[in-house]
């Protein structure tokens, strides 16, 4: 177990270093180099020259890379001339709101996918299973932006029940003041993952139902409910942790689209605005933060899995 943790930590560290190299390379591949990217297209040659000398962009690449990494480690993600604000302060404002959106979406998706997947496994190859299998196929094929538009059409326009725009608060606390406005964005983002999660729970439950311990539990007279909740659900929940970790990048992609549909002032909207206004410091800063968060998310998922699964927890300690 200790050896596994150490190996996994080293891997994660290497990947984080790799991510910083990727963003460093992209920054230097930008049109006009990093100085132009940061000062914007209207900077004069004199300003550019001064900026290059001042920030060491005339030094050898390894020296520049080292400067970049030590800046990152000190929380310096760059400066957006578009907002006249540091990228760190922009992200400090917007990232928590996106984390809230993604967190709520994961909770909703898991809470629906678990019972749905187990139900499909129990009623395998019956009408209920077919209906939800068909639904998850459509779910895979459904672009989130179209689903978002359809939900706005149905629940805000045809039936005026929910607001079509997400909460506009600048802090998480302010966003939580308008829970009704959060429903459509969270449901749309949850739907993106729901199809994958429920298919996963279905197939792992089908495997678990065929295991010896289920037969033993039944033979001991355990009720169907007890077999499903104590044995099948628990064992299907475990591998779902890994899937949650692997699914993080997809959720961030989904958040960008959903924040743009519902005009939710989070990191995704920030990134989208930056992409359309060529605000490269924001794009680079956000990318590295998301990449590192993904690596950490996967690391936590793997460690959680190892900790929760006694077969892994006790492996190699004997």
């Amino acid at each position, binding site marked *: 177990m200790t050896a596994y943790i150490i190996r996994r930590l080293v*891997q994660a560290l*290497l*990947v984080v270093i*790799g*991510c910083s*190299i*990727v963003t460093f390379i*992209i920054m230097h*591949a*930008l*049109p006009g180099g990093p100085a132009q990217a940061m000062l914007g297209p209207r900077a004069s040659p004199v300003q550019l020259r001064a900026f290059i000398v001042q920030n060491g962009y005339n030094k050898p690449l390894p020296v520049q890379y080292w400067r970049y990494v030590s800046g990152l480690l000190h929380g310096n993600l760059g400066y957006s001339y578009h907002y006249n604000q540091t990228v760190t302060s922009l992200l400090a404002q917007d990232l928590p709101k996106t984390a809230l959106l993604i967190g709520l979406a994961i909770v909703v998706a898991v809470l629906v996918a678990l019972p749905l997947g187990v139900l499909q496994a129990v009623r395998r190859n019956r009408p209920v299973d077919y209906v939800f299998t068909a639904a998850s*196929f*459509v779910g*895979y*094929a*459904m*672009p*989130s*932006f*179209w689903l978002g*538009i*359809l939900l*706005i*059409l149905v629940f805000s*326009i045809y039936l005026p029940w929910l607001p079509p725009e997400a909460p506009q608060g600048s802090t998480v606390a302010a966003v939580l003041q308008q829970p009704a406005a959060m429903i459509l964005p969270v449901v749309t983002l949850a739907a993106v993952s729901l199809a994958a999660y429920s298919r996963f729970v279905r197939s792992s439950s089908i495997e678990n139902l065929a295991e010896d311990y289920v037969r033993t539990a039944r033979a001991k007279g355990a009720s169907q409910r007890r077999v499903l909740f104590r044995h099948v659900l628990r064992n299907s929940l475990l591998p779902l942790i890994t899937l949650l970790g692997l699914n993080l*990048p*997809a959720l*961030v*992609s989904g958040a*960008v*689209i959903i924040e*743009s*549909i519902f005009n939710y002032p989070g990191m995704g909207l920030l*990134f*989208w605005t*930056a*992409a*359309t206004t*060529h605000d*490269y410091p924001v*794009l*680079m800063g*956000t*990318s590295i933060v*998301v*990449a*590192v968060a*993904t*690596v950490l998310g996967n690391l936590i998922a793997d460690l959680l899995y190892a900790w929760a699964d006694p077969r892994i927890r006790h492996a190699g300690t004997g």
Partner: protein
Amino acid sequence: MAASETRTGAQAAAADAPGSRASNRSMFRSSISVFLQNRLAIIGLGTIVFMLLFSFIGPLIYHTDQIHTHLSQVDLSPRAQHPLGTNEVGYDELGRLMVGGQSALEVGLAASVLASIVGTIYGAIAGFAGGWIDGLMMRILDTLLAFPALLLLMLITSIITPSIPVMIAVIGLVAWLIPARLVRGETLAVRVRDYVQATKALGSPTWRTISRHIVPNVIGVVVVQTTLEVANAILLLAALGYLGLGAAPPATNWGQMLSDGLNYVYDGYWWLIYPPGIAIVLTVLAFNFMGDALRDSLDVRLQRH
């Protein structure tokens, strides 16, 4: 699925020694017969053929002007001359759907084939080399996978003005990672099988081992993944178009059409919102059906269960 019922042909083929020419052909034929007996596969294939005809042959029969705007005919509801109405600058929506379909299919097919070729080569090298080379190559994959595909694409398309070839290249650039990982896993698994070890012991050269044993075993996974990757590429292209980062007008794709339609969501212009969405869902669904059916028909191990 229906494929599991038809196991005899494939099973007989699997029983043959791998690599002999006759068994290759019968395996191929049995794969086709399994594929054709899968109803979803037929529906998927039919939809793809329909979409190809609709997008590429359609404009030859149904002539529309998709270059000049017609400001006297904007936002018309469906009628005889315009079966799906017109959009905010007067383009015929049905004709626009065809033009959008061309870019979706061109980019989807080309990007996924490109991704599979790059991914297969990369994965096969990593899996065959093993050791620290494999470790390094896999960490590079992990690194690139840590960046959400859509964010990378948005970053690149904000630097380079997108055209169809650029789109193919950049979507291919983010899509090769998964095939690379799959092929590497398969290569590792095949490399240690007894019959591969046996050919090595008999003095078979490396290229022969790769071409006769590794490639035939890996090709099924690659074909399935390529098909599924087409669906992903179409969705990614649509997402970029929706976000306004696609090709410049008058070029379009279904995602771009949807984002134009979103501006009129309160005006009840349903013909700008439903057709492009339905086109995306049907096409993606068709490629997913194809991929699943191909998996059933190409994976001999699966059929034995």
